[in-house]
């Protein structure tokens, strides 16, 4: 069979790949075939029958030659019955008719059947106006019903806090059931009963025990499943729809915000658009609420006479610029540090570090506020292949093997998790998950391998996997010097047996995992904040680079090492040099030739010192060496690793400037607070975990008194004497694209609707293979391992400003293995005190056998629970003591 076939749809002949479904071929030929049950992410089912078409093949005469008619065209032998387009694949020479009398009559018949029991409640249905059944009833349906009998009815149900079910409207296309199964891996929905009584519901009609993503609502072609938070809020034609980029995780999903007046009423995905298409996780779908929160700052604040008071923007800018100038003059620019910026758009990140480096002359810039140890600015770049093309997220779901290192993707990047689940279901993807907890992807139903390492042995595990990979020799295709370095690394690492003891995973399992990774043709290693925010981050990322080379993930054609960062634009922050020792594009400031374009453009001589990273800034500020801090879009009081130290640091600083949407705990301690615009109120570019640039759109105008961060930076830079004159983010992007290696040649216009992934033909950094050894640091001590990580429902200080997400997340809980809890005399729901070297937190305990014994798990996103009160982690992690306490639950 040839790779492509010719097929004629309604007289239009097109060439499509063999194996294409008729519905997809028709879309290619721009012929409309209606669809209910088929979905691009789901295997063909053929449940609803609305896509019926007439199909025929050329008639064959003697000698199997096509018979031609009088006009010379081949005669077509039409199949006697219509076929479903969504389950039939095209064949060479196939003819399809969607507009013949037979097809139209069949479709009308299907439509009549679908409408037999469908209620006529479109005016009060939330789907009315954007309902596919409504549209098709207009297009193909009859304008009367021949049914005299009463319609069958069901009682409507609330399936949990998100999903409202009105089964009367259901056409049993099974999209929701299949999507929940194939894509989410939750299997929360199922079809009850049979025949005309079929009804979609949950186990025993209980509230759904699932990720509450609402994708079942999204894929529902009718109004059977609707969103309770959006219930009766608006009709579709009231809404202005703006497609922008979700502000939460680094997957960079496109969200379609529905805006009425100045209020965002809902967020949805869009089929056939964005990296995510229709998919949105619970944060993407319901996490927009903070934008219209009444608690938003409505003007800049200045600390005058001890308390923060509203001030005009110009006044605040003048004050901030004057104070910065004074401090730079009195203590040198190194006394000023810039923090945060993971959540900003690319242009704003660029301006932020340009303000620090080009205007003030300090290299103390770091976006990784949560980091506990310094990580070289190019470490993640080298670990991910120094700018080699990254797999797209779609390709990731088609990989043969995916190794997830340390991250619970359910919390960090739900879409990446869903793609891996989809890949496992549909494309034979095999998962290997290295995580001390049994996270969702590690469940046996996904058929993967769970490397349940002991907490604190992360580095040993990656090294052992590298050693096991190198037992088979150096992979083919690596450069010669890498090969030599790998060979000497192999002898330095020894055998996996040593690692097996420490990690608690048998050497055989390690070897099998390494072998699968090396053998897979298309593969990915995924890592994220669990390792980059680890006290041994530098060694861990080096170890990942070693593993990447040793397993071929950095050399094989369809393989990638992917960094799934902590925020939606963490990759952009790295690219834009929000690290103390790298300029935008990972340019080493020590390299005179490479830094010259920046010096010329910025009109300044750069500070060539290595600068201070976030943990070092924290230390220096606490000791009084750093006098001024500018913290952008970050609740540093909560995210800094050590609470006592951050309190001291903010107290000792002469000037603290904060950009935020809300008066956060950090902002309350600031001297200048700038009211910033939210993601929906500004334009800009975000770079996701596949290094794809996407333009976000402005859906509403900024809240009165709030300004985009980029405008604030520009105003202060001008206050400091710089001659910046950027009118739009596009101006900034043009400068970025001119200066930044890897971004060169990119234009603003090509970033819509889906921008390209940036790559660099020449590696931006040479390979470095070195034994990854943990720095000899203080031992972590004894006690339980404090495990923390992302959680599905909350991420960052913005997520708990709305109504839905905190409600879904519930209260913070300390999760303990039942055996561990029994040893400590703790029961489910008991109040426990977790004490570390720096202090303690008190919260309720939950028993969870997914958490390993010898550890306690608390997610860090909860508002009421500040884990940094426990003290900074040391060695390979943080160890705490847990005891039952009678004390009342004390928030924060």
């Amino acid at each position, binding site marked *: 069979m040839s790779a492509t076939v010719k097929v004629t749809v309604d007289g239009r002949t097109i060439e499509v790949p063999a194996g294409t479904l008729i519905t997809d071929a028709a879309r290619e030929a721009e012929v409309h075939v209606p669809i209910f049950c088929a979905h691009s992410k789901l295997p063909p089912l053929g449940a609803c029958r609305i896509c019926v078409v007439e199909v025929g093949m050329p008639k064959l005469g003697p000698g199997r030659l096509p018979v031609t008619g009088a006009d010379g065209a081949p005669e077509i032998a039409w199949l006697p019955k219509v076929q479903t387009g969504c389950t039939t694949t095209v064949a060479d020479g196939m003819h399809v008719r969607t507009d013949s009398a037979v097809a139209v009559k069949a479709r009308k018949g299907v439509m009549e059947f679908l409408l037999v029991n469908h209620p006529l409640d479109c*005016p009060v249905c939330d789907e009315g106006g954007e309902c596919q059944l409504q549209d098709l009833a207009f297009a193909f349906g009859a304008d009367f019903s021949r049914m005299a009998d009463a319609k069958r009815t069901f009682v409507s149900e609330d399936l949990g806090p998100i999903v409202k079910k009105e089964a009367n409207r259901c056409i049993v296309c099974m999209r929701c059931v299949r999507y929940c199964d194939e894509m989410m891996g939750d299997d929360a929905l199922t079809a009850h009963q049979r025949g005309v009584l079929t009804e979609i519901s949950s186990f025993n009609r209980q509230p759904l025990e699932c990720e509450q993503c609402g994708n079942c609502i999204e894929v529902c072609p009718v109004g059977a499943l609707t969103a309770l938070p959006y219930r*009766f809020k608006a*009709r579709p*034609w*009231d809404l202005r729809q703006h497609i922008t980029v979700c502000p939460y995780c680094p997957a960079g999903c496109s969200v379609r915000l529905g805006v009425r007046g100045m209020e965002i009423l809902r967020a949805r995905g869009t089929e056939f658009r964005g990296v995510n298409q229709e998919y949105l996780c619970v944060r993407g779908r319901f996490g927009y609420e903070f934008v219209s929160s009444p608690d938003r700052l409505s003007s800049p604040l200045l600390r005058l006479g001890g308390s923060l008071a509203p001030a005009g923007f110009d006044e605040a800018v003048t004050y901030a610029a004057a104070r910065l100038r004074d401090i730079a003059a009195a203590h040198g620019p190194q006394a000023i540090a810039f923090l945060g910026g993971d959540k900003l758009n690319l242009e704003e990140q660029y301006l932020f570090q340009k303000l620090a480096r080009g205007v003030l002359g300090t290299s103390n810039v770091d976006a990784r506020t949560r980091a506990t140890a310094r990580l070289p600015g190019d470490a993640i770049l080298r670990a991910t292949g120094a700018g080699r093309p990254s797999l797209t997220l779609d390709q990731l779901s088609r990989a043969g093997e995916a190794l997830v290192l340390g991250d619970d993707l359910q919390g960090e990047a739900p879409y990446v998790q869903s793609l891996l689940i989809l890949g496992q279901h549909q494309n034979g993807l095999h998962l290997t998950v290295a995580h001390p907890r049994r996270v969702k992807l590690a469940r046996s139903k996904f058929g993967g391998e769970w490397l349940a390492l002991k907490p604190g042995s992360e580095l040993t595990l990656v090294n052992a996997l590298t050693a096991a990979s190198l037992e088979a020799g150096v992979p083919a295709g690596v450069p010669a010097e890498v090969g030599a370095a790998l060979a000497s690394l192999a002898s330095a690492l020894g055998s996996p047996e040593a690692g097996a003891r420490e990690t608690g995973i048998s050497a055989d399992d390690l070897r099998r995992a390494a072998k699968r990774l090396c053998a897979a043709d298309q593969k990915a290693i995924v890592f994220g904040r669990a390792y980059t925010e680890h006290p041994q981050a530098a060694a861990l990322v080096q170890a990942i680079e070693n593993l990447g080379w040793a397993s071929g993930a950095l050399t094989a054609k369809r393989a990638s090492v992917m960094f799934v960062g902590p925020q939606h634009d963490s990759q952009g922050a790295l690219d834009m040099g929000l690290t103390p020792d790298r300029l935008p594009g990972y340019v080493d400031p020590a390299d005179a030739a490479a830094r010259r374009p920046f010096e010329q453009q910025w009109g300044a001589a750069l500070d060539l010192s290595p600068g201070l990273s976030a943990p070092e800034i924290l230390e220096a500020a606490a000791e009084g060496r750093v006098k001024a801090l500018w913290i952008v879009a970050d609740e540093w009081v909560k995210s800094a690793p050590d609470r006592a130290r951050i309190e001291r640091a903010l107290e000792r600083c002469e000037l603290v400037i904060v950009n935020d949407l809300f008066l956060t705990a950090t902002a309350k301690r600031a001297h200048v607070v700038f009211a910033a615009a939210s993601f929906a109120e500004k334009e800009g570019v975000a770079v996701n975990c596949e290094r794809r640039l996407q333009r976000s759109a402005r859906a509403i105008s900024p809240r009165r008194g709030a300004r985009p961060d980029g405008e604030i930076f520009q105003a202060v830079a001008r206050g400091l004497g710089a001659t910046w004159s950027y009118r739009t983010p596009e101006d900034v992007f043009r400068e970025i694209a001119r200066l930044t290696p890897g971004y060169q040649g990119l234009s603003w216009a090509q970033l819509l609707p889906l921008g390209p992934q940036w790559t660099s033909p020449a590696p931006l950094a040479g390979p470095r293979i070195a034994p990854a050894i943990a720095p000899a640091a203080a031992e972590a001590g004894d006690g339980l391992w404090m495990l923390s990580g992302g959680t599905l429902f909350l991420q960052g200080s913005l997520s708990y400003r709305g109504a839905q997400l905190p409600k879904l997340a519930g209260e913070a809980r300390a999760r303990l293995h039942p055996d561990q809890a029994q040893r400590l005399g703790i029961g489910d729901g008991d109040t426990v005190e977790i004490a570390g070297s720096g202090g303690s937190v008190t919260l309720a305990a939950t028993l969870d056998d997914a958490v390993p014994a010898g550890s306690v798990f608390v997610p860090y996103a909860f508002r009421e629970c500040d884990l940094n009160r426990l003290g900074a982690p040391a060695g390979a992690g943080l160890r705490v003591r847990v005891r039952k306490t009678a004390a009342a639950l004390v928030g924060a």
Partner: protein
Amino acid sequence: MLKELGQGLGVTLGNLFKKPFTVQYPEEKLEMFPRFRGLHILTRHEDGLERCVGCELCAVACPADAIFVKAAENDPQRPNTHGERYAERYEINMLRCIFCGMCEEACPEDAIYLEKNYELSDYDRDAFIYTKDELLVGPEKSGYLPQR
């Protein structure tokens, strides 16, 4: 010439004794025709519940974009309508309204009618935005539907 003058005055005199067409507004008011389209009313069911379910079909049908509706879910204990939803806010901007009656045509619930009230003057532009409590008929007119 006198003859013409007489004829002319004759017409004047004749009209002087005819019944006048004008009425002494506002003391005296004309009765409008049954299908006259004046100020809108929102009607009630026989049991006093509102007919309007907040579906916004009137708003989308309105060629002058004069109608604003915001729906909400009924409290099952104290419902406003028979169904699940009702119009929390229902506003018509009478400065925009062209009294075409399309809202009435579009309404699937017989909830909105253009009635005979034409006295729509005021001193303030804001006063021309008629809110739901001004449009909704009193409970004493439950079940009332204008003749069409």
